[in-house]
């Protein structure tokens, strides 16, 4: 195992972490700002993947597929917030868990009705289907690099929106003190609907980007949901920065765990979570 082996694994870890960040950032925003535990977040990831598969099939190109699927995902997020979630803001977390768990079941059933139980694959656009040779035996797929670039772009965009715009200011204010924002006369309902739709769209976008490398199959959203919660908890609830660092940590821990400690690989990320919580119970960037 020479240096290049570890460098490539580093690349694998970062790429996985970036993708996790897209899903987890939406989850942490929704939880931090709206106080909603959204178990159905993984379902948006799944729908993103299936929509990408469906529209790519119709239009023949992944890019046009994603461009068509993204507005659909936004509308879906908005509809779910208005028709279901919005009735539970004043309720206990238990009600939210029940509702969003029910949503998972409904969405999984809808997915089966529309697309069936088969495994589908989404073609990578020919322009990006090549591989970059790294060593004598191994090449790195261009598309995986592209995913990382997209994720970095989106992360920078989010940073800009949240730090530099009026909307971002409101979101940040909402995350730190919801009642005060309300008292200041900001339309919280609209803010919540917007945050929820954006969060859902981010998760769906992650599903779309990952569709060509992950293949599309039933239950694809469930495993990403669990790991996203781990990221959110490590990073600190409501913190985008925390979600980013948490996602990177999990991406690297998962990748190197598989290679260096294969016997306990599936435990490594949870052990990491336990360690972080032991040290900082509120998460890395959470407010205690």
């Amino acid at each position, binding site marked *: 195992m020479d240096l290049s082996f570890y460098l490539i694994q580093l690349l694998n870890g970062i790429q996985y972490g970036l993708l996790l960040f897209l899903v987890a950032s939406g989850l942490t925003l929704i939880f931090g700002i709206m106080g909603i535990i959204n178990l159905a977040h993984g379902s948006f990831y799944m729908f993103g993947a299936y929509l990408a598969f469906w529209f790519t099939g119709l239009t023949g190109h992944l890019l046009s597929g994603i461009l068509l699927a993204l507005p659909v995902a936004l509308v879906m997020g908005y509809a779910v917030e208005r028709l279901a979630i919005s009735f539970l803001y004043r309720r206990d977390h238990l009600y939210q868990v029940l509702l969003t768990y029910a949503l998972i079941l409904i969405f999984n059933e809808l997915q089966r009705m529309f697309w069936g139980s088969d495994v589908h694959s989404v073609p990578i656009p020919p322009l990006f289907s090549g591989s970059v040779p790294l060593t004598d035996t191994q090449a790195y*797929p261009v598309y995986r690099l592209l995913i990382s670039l997209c994720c970095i772009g989106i992360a920078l965009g989010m940073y800009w929106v949240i730090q530099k715009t009026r909307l971002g200011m409101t979101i940040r204010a909402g995350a730190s003190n919801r009642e005060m924002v309300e008292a200041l006369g900001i339309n919280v309902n609209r803010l919540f609907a917007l945050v929820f739709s954006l969060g859902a769209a981010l998760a769906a976008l992650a599903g779309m980007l990952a569709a060509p490398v992950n293949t599309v199959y039933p239950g694809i959203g469930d495993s990403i949901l669990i790991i996203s919660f781990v990221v959110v908890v490590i990073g600190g609830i409501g913190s985008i920065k925390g979600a980013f660092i948490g996602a990177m940590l999990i991406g690297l821990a998962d990748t190197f765990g598989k290679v260096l400690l294969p016997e306990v690989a599936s435990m490594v990320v949870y052990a990491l979570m336990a360690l972080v919580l032991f040290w900082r119970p509120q998460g890395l960037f959470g407010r205690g």
Partner: protein
Amino acid sequence: MSQATPTGIKRRTLLKGAAGVAAASTLFHPVFAIGGQAKVKVGLLLPYTGTYAKLGNNIKDALALRIEQSGGKMGGREVEFVSIDSEAKPPKAPELTKKLIKKEQVDFLVGPVHSVVGMAMAKMARQDGLITVIPNAGANQLTGELCAPNIFRTSFSSYQPGFPGGKAMLEDGHKRVVLMYWNYGFGKQVAAAFKQSFLAGGGTIVKEIPTPFPKVDFQAYLTEVAALQPDAVFTFYAGGGAVKFVKDYAAAGLNKHIPLYGAGFLTEGVTAAQGAAAEGVRTTLHYADSLDLPANHRFREAFQQAYGRPADVYAVQGYDAADLLLQGMAAVQGDTGARAEMITAMESSTIDSPRGAFTFSRAHNPVQNIYLREVVNGENRVLRTVEERLEDPAEGCSLA
């Protein structure tokens, strides 16, 4: 307790009525049986929803096709199917099996697809003595520790696609191999059978990489394979995992230098989703769509015509399950009470299967040819027969 129901009937009256109907049906049942004209009830416990839905449907349809081909009758009696969706969920298996045996009082049991469902079902079938045909579930135990005179399997044991893999790779000149598989019951059994023949033939396993089931994130492991530079890789993955693995393997550029082998499920029913990445992948299995045998051509044509979609290995297994039952019923002229005679006939039967004719081992598992196939233009082409009439060792079986 004597609350009136909305229609005014007392609950107790209702209960009495229900008891009466139940008593009457148990009274009438033997009368039908003596007449010999009652339909033969075949209970099917297969998945029609979930990940394995396609397998369940193909098995059921091919089974119905085979019975249709013999005039819709078994041993001179009309056939009735009692079909229950197993959902491939092990916790539900005992209850559903019981429902078929006790409530529906089926004459035969066919199922399931999922190995763990199969274990639960086999345990109950053993106790009851009901003649049971397993059309897929491959766990070695089903014709090993759990084997019974009344339990037959028309598919394979996990040993059968695994063991010939080692021989095939050595024949192809690959001596240093990485072994990768999903770390659960079936994957472990396939890998163990592979190792048995590969190590005995003088091969070296450079590294064994069990990956968590059912996760499909292989990138980190593939980087490791590239660093190890083995002669070739042998794998067990199926369904979504198989699609993902083969695509990732090609995307990492490994397919150009390190040939990929696997148990047949790696390229079974998934080559369309795998696309160009599957080209050149070699696998071992007891069947191939392109198998050039008259029985296979006839079967595939009939299935396509009846259902408007191509048959696959699972359909073959269902078709053969029906053939086995037909032979058993023919031997006793439809007398389902003559279980012992029927079992004797089934044990000594030869199934003229689309996969090539096969017989049964003493543990009631097929003694069958295993083929080495290679994906060419999205189709599994047969390269050669690796093992002629391979018999499962049936470890722990009291019949063998």
